[in-house]
């Protein structure tokens, strides 16, 4: 069972209470951008086997979107954090580095 703590209401929610989103920290491209930029933003995914940053919604709880850092190979959860950031917070990065010394970074 996948369990993530909602950073807003503090509830430790299992996956049945949550809706998965998709890759987090994508740079958004809108009107005025090139077709390639828009396509990459819309569809291209890093899809790592390992550390993954992703969006989740506490759908059957407070209803808010938040972000999670998780390992897609082992399903280990490194942490969750509010969605109002453009890159992972330093404490999450530090946690991941401690657990995955050879991790190449989130970009």
């Amino acid at each position: 069972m996948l369990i993530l703590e909602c950073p807003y209401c503090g509830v430790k929610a299992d996956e049945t209470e949550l809706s998965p989103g998709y890759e987090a920290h994508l740079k958004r491209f809108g009107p005025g951008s090139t077709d390639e930029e828009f396509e990459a933003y819309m569809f291209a995914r890093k899809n790592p086997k390992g550390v993954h940053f992703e969006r989740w919604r506490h759908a059957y709880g407070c209803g808010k979107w938040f972000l999670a850092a998780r390992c897609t190979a082992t399903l280990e959860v490194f942490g969750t954090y509010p969605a109002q950031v453009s890159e992972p917070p330093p404490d999450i990065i530090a946690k991941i580095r401690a657990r995955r010394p050879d991790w190449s970074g989130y970009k």
Partner: protein
Amino acid sequence: MIVRTRPADCHTNLFMSGARGFGGRGNSMRYSGLRVITEGLFGNKGWTPAWRDPAPKAEYDVVIIGGGGHGLSTAYYLARNHGITNVAVLEKGHLGSGNIGRNTTIVRANYFLPGNSEFYSHSLKLWEGLEAELNYNVMHSQRGLINLFHSDGQRDAFVRRGNAMINQGDDAVLLDQEGVREHLPYLDFEQTRFPIYGGLLHPRGGTARHDAVAWGYARGADRRGVDLIQNCEVTGIDIQGGVVRGVQTTRGAIRAKKVGIIVAGRSSQVAAMAGMRLPVESHVLQAFVTEGLKPVIDHVISFGMGHFYISQSDKGGLVFGGDLDFYASYAARGNLPMVEHVMEAGMTLMPMIGRAKVLRSWGGIMDMTPDGSPVIDKTHVEGLFIDCGWNYGGFKAVPASGWSMAHLMATGESHEVARKFRLERFATGHLLDEEGTGSQHNLH
């Protein structure tokens, strides 16, 4: 119900019990019923391996990365249709260890959108001749597929789909509730949540033995000169001046004039070796099989509203499954909420299966695209091709995908049935969203 986790094969095969392959003396021995009987009389001592185990050569005309169904069928059709036999298939594990040996074996041509329709139609025709073509028992069984519907709106959608199938030259029969009852008397028709209004019967739909398909293509490719190289993981792709030169592997560097990436759930990692970021996200799909029972389910039944489908293998096990776990995963095992959901849906539809014991469950990593449709295309690197994005429907596609990918790699042109499977559709917005569920990887 007891659930244990182990990737499984869920059928037996007279020709395959216990063995990884079975073959003739040298490379020319044909299989036949007579041969099975004679060998049986003389202690089965005459069988030899179904394919060679060659060491990799320094160079090939074509290297295929990935020894799953699609990689093997591509190699086979490169040799058969285009006379290209200086080919190696590089597989990181053993042949058939990926999704080709983990799927629930449904083979159908009930697609609706132009682009998908002609492709799966072509694939089903290849299936229908596959055993004779490969001289291999793939246990293709056209037992009929019934997709249930539960409302007037859904019936209209299925009428439209059925007409699209008939226009494509395939078969479709609309069944009302009585019609479904004649085929499937054991369903719970009056269940309050999704009462059954009827179904769309696709008589030529059915199942096949999953790993026999891999083994049949492997043996066929080997006999035509293709080197099947197992325990050989590709770790890099060599590119010079925009042209592919070969690959780096755990068994050394191998030069190649052309390289095909055909690695299903691992597509993003291998494509990244060529600097590509694909429209793919990997997700786990689970499946289940019960203990062997006497024949009880004659068809393939799809209960879309409940996210459940089922068939019975020739060995007697009920083979069934449901939806993805919905979040990105490379763990070839799923989590319990989806197990519970699938069991509940099965019990809603056909309470009679409630006393069957589940023997095994397992998961496979699916290469999900944002529109649910695949890619068979060139890449930005000359000589480098990619075949991926099969979502959870790539088993039935194995023949036509290999056929089309071989055509593309040999001629440089998309095959006419695979013209819509280009990467550029994501740039131009011509998505092929068969289910109309929206452009997110986990929605298909």
